[in-house]
């Protein structure tokens, strides 16, 4: 028990966010009379927040670099408009249009990254300008109207589910199979890590605690798969999200360029004098944000099955809020991808829960604002104390 306490107190900040998420979920589960955690609603929460999670991942990298991007909502809307123009007005195939749209996102990112990294214009200004520029261009591309519907197949990305190849009546068996696979991969990875830790003489947690952790996480994965399987199975977009979350976490934690991003945000001068090409790092982080904004724009357009001039409004603030609630520091150098995802989920569950309760959009905004302020204030207070 003492060990558990110690592990807990060492990771209080990491657990803090998870506990907040669980707390909010339980609260709304009670307030909504059990609607929040039904299979249908959980599937909804994932799909409703998918594009914010995509943006939050990119935003985390931007914030870790010590920059900010206010243009992501406009860029998402612009790419949605371009993709609609390509597919609806020019009859382009879905695959080609998606690839062109992502490339356009990369170009936009390169444009903004150029001004920030090489001309030293503050990111706040560059992306504030971008916010106006790309909102304006969205209106121009769409001619002020909504373009719809998209051709068959486009909305598959964001609105459909994995096909039920195995059959199984009420239970989506493929989803359960994927859940099982995930557990096996997870267990093998943990065991390998533990072996390495022993080899390199780390302090490791005792075996019973380790076993407890394995069992707990396996159960969570299986339970989540089961809930999804009870409704329509695994949403396609969740597959994309998992791929991004795991990929970006690995990138930030285990690659040299990921480490460079942390160093540039932590201390640009020291990074530069350590041989890191700081301008290049900043530039590519913006290119990456451009691509992820484009992806978010595509997912959003697919969900609506339309490109609208007002798409993506205030997405930038949701993405920044998610990253910051998830522990990223606007001063740079601090933040995690998983934290941002949890931050996005906290905001998502709040949104969803309040909507079910019939709370108006007015109060929703005010409450979300207070949650953001409280989360960061608590973090600051705990930091000041530890000094």
């Amino acid at each position, binding site marked *: 028990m003492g060990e558990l306490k110690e592990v807990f107190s060492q990771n209080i900040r990491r657990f803090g966010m998870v506990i907040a998420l669980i707390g909010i979920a339980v609260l709304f589960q009670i307030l909504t009379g059990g609607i929040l955690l039904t299979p249908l609603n959980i599937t909804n929460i994932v799909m409703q927040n998918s594009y914010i999670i995509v943006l939050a991942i990119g935003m985390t990298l931007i914030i870790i670099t010590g920059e900010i991007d206010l243009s992501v909502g406009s860029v998402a809307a612009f790419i949605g408009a371009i993709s609609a123009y390509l597919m609806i007005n020019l009859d382009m195939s879905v695959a080609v249009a998606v690839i062109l749209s992502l490339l356009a996102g990369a170009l936009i990112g390169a444009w903004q990254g150029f001004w920030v990294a090489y001309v030293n214009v503050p990111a706040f200004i560059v992306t504030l300008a971008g916010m106006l520029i790309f909102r304006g261009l969205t209106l121009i591309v769409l001619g002020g109207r909504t373009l719809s519907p998209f051709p068959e197949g486009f909305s598959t990305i964001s609105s459909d589910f994995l096909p039920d190849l195995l059959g199984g009546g009420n239970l989506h068996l493929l989803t359960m199979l994927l859940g099982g696979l995930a557990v096996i991969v997870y267990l093998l990875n943990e065991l390998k890590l533990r072996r390495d830790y022993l080899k390199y003489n780390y302090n490791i947690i005792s075996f019973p605690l380790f076993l407890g952790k394995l069992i707990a996480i396996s159960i969570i994965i299986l339970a989540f798969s089961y809930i999804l399987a009870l409704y329509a199975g695994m949403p396609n977009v969740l597959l994309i999200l998992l791929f991004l979350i795991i990929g970006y976490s690995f990138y930030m934690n285990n690659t*040299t360029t990921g*480490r460079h991003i942390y160093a540039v945000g*932590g201390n640009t001068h020291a990074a530069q004098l350590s041989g890191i*090409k700081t301008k290049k790092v900043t530039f590519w982080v913006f290119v990456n944000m451009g691509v992820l904004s484009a992806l978010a724009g595509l997912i959003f357009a697919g969900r609506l099955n339309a490109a609208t001039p007002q798409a993506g409004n205030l997405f930038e603030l949701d993405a920044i809020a998610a990253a910051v609630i998830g522990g990223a520091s606007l001063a740079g150098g601090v933040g995690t991808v998983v934290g941002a995802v949890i931050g996005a989920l906290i905001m998502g569950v709040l949104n969803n829960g309040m909507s079910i309760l019939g709370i108006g959009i007015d109060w929703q905004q005010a409450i979300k604002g207070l949650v953001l302020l409280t989360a960061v204030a608590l973090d600051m207070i705990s930091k000041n104390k530890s000094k």
Partner: protein
Amino acid sequence: MATILSMKNITKTFPGVKALDNVNLEVEQGEIHALVGENGAGKSTLMKVLSGVHPHHSYSGDILFQGQKCEFKNINQSEELGIVIIHQELALIPELSIAENVFLGNEQSTKGIINWNESIEKTKALLDKVGLHINPQTLIKQIGVGKQQLVEIAKALSKEVKLLILDEPTAALNEEDSENLLNLLVEFKKQGITSILISHKLNELMAVVDRITILRDGKTIETLSMEKDGVTEQRIIKGMVGRDMNDLYPERVSQPGGVVLEVKEWNVYNPENPQQQIIHNANFHIKKGEIVGIAGLMGAGRTELAMSVFGKSYGRNISGRIFKDGKEIKIENVNQAIEQGLAYVSEDRKKYGLVLNDSVRENLTLANLFKISRRSILNKHEEVKQAENLKGSMNIKTPTIEQKAINLSGGNQQKVVLGKWIFTNPDVLILDEPTRGIDVGAKNEIYKKINDLAQEGKGILMISSELPELLGMCDRIYTLAEGRITGEVNKKDADQEQLMTYMTRSRRS
């Protein structure tokens, strides 16, 4: 004469370091009192305690000013009593005018509306007192460091100063400006203003001060009276160092090999002002296993020279040639510098050396992630192993390598920076003020490490403001003045006086 200030049994600890240990200081009304000691001896900390930067309760001991017990919570309270401190780094705002700076926080106003005529009139009067005859509406950034120093003093006068504390006021000044400033203090003395002067320039001190208090390792060693004690420079140095020089600077048998790095005809211009040449035609070389010093006053261009060689990290329009092991090489950026086996340990470890919020481990490996990765994927186990090795070999005192660098003491931070560059396995290490602001114990450890590196055959270029350090460590010393190399002396021929002569040799003379 009456005692104006007495500080009794002042003890102040920082995490891991006892900065002041039962320090006593007595200053008499109307005297100029010098406070001397090595870097890290506790001079600045003592003055911060006195002025309320370190508030009451953060230290123990008593402060009596004009017979009254003082418990300052902040600078405002000490300034109200007439205790004004002028820090080493000037606290002026470059974009504001002299008048605005002089009355900053003390604006001449009625009901919140500033009375500009009055401000300018009063500033003019104050500037006259310090012998500065320029328009009070000139912006601070338009005047030189020497004049800025005088503006700081004018600002102090505007607060009706009784005790003026100057922390290294002449460090950045040329001889003429220094003399002006010191004469001014003598002038103030006649008007009854007491001064405490912190300085390393002993010859200057001895010309103007009445008494000297010597601090060493956070303790008061003695207070000498210029009149009674027949003070000489040697006498003061003995008090400051207080030990055999050989103890501090470990023995080393020097066996220099071939020339490892040679820089020829090196010219550098100021990146902010391309007309201003910072380094003029510098030539120098370093041999394998040799420790070479660069001595120069502040502003001589020491750091600029080092950083421009290290991948052109400073300056523009850089011209000149670099030879490594006899072959000419091109170094355009820091990456290439590291690839060519150069390492640069910056004088400002917090600004240029460390990512303070990252762990010791991440800082140690940052300059050579290549070594712990394959195809850009980090091997974290290898990283931990290497970081633990460095922690051991550098004797970094930290509970774990996961500790954030910001939580380490200055000496241990410096060891992390040095360790980080040792991890790149360089052939030449440029050490810019490697022992600035760290305590004597850590200094000694770093000296030993530097000697070990030289023994391994690495070439060391050591920049320092402390001449005893250069004399104690180096085989050969170059002197730098106004961006020119003005001398080269071997260890056996070198002494402080001769170095100082070369260091102050300007173009004119």
